[in-house]
């Protein structure tokens, strides 16, 4: 039986190996913070990390997720820099895309701790937000970057 490592825990999953990771997470493991938006990797709502790299879980088959360390929004520390930055910037509106946005932002900040606006745009351009919260997301990423660097907020 395939095993998945999600947020540091190992799960045995009985499912078709072609089943997208998104639906394994949501429907079998009940980790519903990862959202379905398009199913074809164009909206970013389903963003998770595979071995630290951002990935669109709606197009990653279960078979390709085996043996990788999967991180979902549930694995992002509560009360951490990203959560506080998102709250301070008052980024969420409907909120549906925001977990994917945070996962994309977390991956960006892991590789670029102090991103410019242009770097943020590049990293975040695949994460759509229908409420148009982009400028607050950009502000939140800068806030989180400063916080993680230990600077004054």
């Amino acid at each position, binding site marked *: 039986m395939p095993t998945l490592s999600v947020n540091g825990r190992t799960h045995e999953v009985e*499912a*078709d190996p072609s*089943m*997208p990771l998104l*639906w394994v997470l*949501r*429907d*079998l493991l*009940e980790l*519903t*913070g*990862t*959202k*379905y*938006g*398009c*199913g*074809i990797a*164009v*909206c970013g*709502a389903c963003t998770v990390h595979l071995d630290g790299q951002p990935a669109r879980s709606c197009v990653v088959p279960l078979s390709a997720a085996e043996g990788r360390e999967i991180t*979902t*929004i*549930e694995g*992002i520390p*509560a009360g951490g820099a*990203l*959560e506080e930055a*998102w*709250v301070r910037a*008052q*980024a*969420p*509106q*409907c*909120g*549906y*895309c*925001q*977990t994917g946005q*945070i996962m994309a932002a977390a991956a960006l900040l892991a590789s670029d701790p102090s991103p410019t606006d242009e770097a*943020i*745009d*590049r990293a*975040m*351009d*695949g*994460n*759509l*937000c*229908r*409420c*148009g*919260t*982009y*400028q*607050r*997301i*950009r502000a939140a990423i800068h806030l989180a970057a400063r916080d993680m660097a230990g600077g004054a907020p």
Partner: protein
Amino acid sequence: MSTLTRRDFVRVTALAGGGLLLGVYGCDGMGGGEALPVGTLEPNAFLRLDPDGTITVISKHLEMGQGTYTGLATLVAEEMDADWNRVRVVAAPADVERYANLLFGIQGTGGSSAIANSFEQYRRAGATARHMLVSAAQSRWGVRGGGLVTEASEVVEPTRGRRLGYGELAGLAATMPVPEEVPLKEPSAFRLIGRESVAPRVDARDKAMGRATFTQDVKRPGMLTALVAHPPRFGASVAGFDDTAARAVPGVVDVVQIPTGVAVVAEHFWAAKTGRDALAVRWDESQAVNRSSADISQELRRLAGHQGREVRRDGDAEAALAGAARTVELTFEVPYLAHACMEPMNCVVEVNGNGAVVTSGAQIQTLDQAAVAAVLDLEPAQVRIETLYAGGSFGRRAAKTSDYMVEAAHIARALEGRAPVKLVWTREDDTRSGFFRPAFVHRVRGGLDGDGRLVAWWHRAVGSSSAAGSALAAPEGDPSGVEGIEDMSYAVPNVYVDQHSPEPGVPVQWWRSVGHSHTAFAVEVFVDEMARAAGRDPVDFRRELLADDPRRLAVLELAAERAGWGSPLPAGRARGVAVHRSFGTYVAQVAEVSEEGGEPRVHRVVCAVDCGIPVNPDIIRMQMESGIVYGLSAALFGRITVDRGRVVEDNLNRYRIVRMSEAPEVEVHIVPSAEAPTGVGEPGTPPIAPAVANALAVLRGRPVTTLPLV
């Protein structure tokens, strides 16, 4: 009866009737010394105060991103003098008696009306609770009359330094008479309303971290997930189907025919999706819509040449046009649009012995309750609705026929109540199944006199009624098709407006700002063109025409000033302006635009808004930012194409929306006001398309009359 103490001294008293009274006595050394009964204060349908001090505001309005949970909680907390950190919000059940929208008469969210219709009601609810808490403190301390104040969820007697928390007082307050009349605060006494940073969104933290529950996330014991194969063309229906392969998919539980197609019911989404892909359906297309977008466009343009249903006549526009020194005529056209909420449509229906439970994030509970009840042969009151957060709506979940909820109810019915069922639409279902913003054509003629004054405005609006076929349709005509034209306040002596409302068979519904989403485009681009014909600056030209509309004028002036109207710009960039009133709120926007590689690029938008008393300034800014980006997606890219009754676009790669790198920097300025508050969810959208178009007209030297721009 149990009672509360702050120290734990318990006394048991035998009562005459043989029962036991468990008395828990407080020894707070602050006077009183008598028991405070443990209890919950529920003075009305809109709030509850628990003994731990938690204040639960019950929202009659759907939270779909627009911030209404925070807004309604602000109203309650303001009058209650509540500690904002102890306030949470839950959705009201479907109950038209208690939770009607006071502007609609039924329970529903829409028309940017949540704050406008709740402003007194929710403040009164909070003031009532405060009054009862003060009465309880008076009783507890044995004091009468004034002298007590409230702040941050405490009643305080300043002279003696005594204070009691709301939670401690809740049980005693619940025994106090509910006052019939309570005074509301004067605006000068507001501590939350209109203040910055004191009432942040109540939903931000949970939404950021994936802890907020959307319908998509609901799981009930034994629940099944259904996907529906819908007809490929509007008006087509099921002729027959072969479900052998679908049923062979592991996890598929059943395949059932319903009025809108064939439902594949499975243990989870992926099994249902795989089953649906394997399903072979034969469609009866004999009644299918044959028209394509080009046919509909041609029909709308043809009707624009024929007299329509008159909706406004001031003076004699034809005569004034005939006598004008200069006339201009433009025909505007906008396409069908999808709402494209990030959360595709979905709904959970659970049939039980007493009725049914519908779990959904939907805007109009009263209609949905009745529609689902009709499918399940129940009385509306037997349908309970649990309203969850909606992952966007923009009017889509104000489902005029309750379409997707009815579809879920049909599946539940076909399953004979075997299991709770969650209907999930894929993105493709969501894009293609419709209820679109209608396509419209506007034909506008204007005349200038010899001094360059606008003396005639003749306007014909042609397009489907968003409300047609619903319980909310007007008895005659389509008021939403001419809103923003019919109430245009430019001082023009001769105005004529009429409309046609054809129904070419494409399902339409209100879309963020409804008619204003296209009327503002036609009106504001036309005003700019008349200004150009008169050789006038567009802001100056509007300023004169708005002399009798001070609120519209004020937002125009503010936006123009903050945008640096008239100041130099980098080469290749131009500014465009638009001002519009919708849902009682006045918004002006100035857009800075260039063209790069054949695509317009909007760099900056300066927005001024007057929505009466600003309740939550940051939410007002959020909604302007949101309305602008939403409207910009439509202006730049939005188009649903119909090909012989079939929708061509299917997913977000073909229905393009603005990305972060394409989003302008938005700057919002709020006009201080003492007027009754009006909504902000929609009014940010109408001005952006004409503001961008007007800037492009400067760059191109000719007016922009069709959308989308790309």
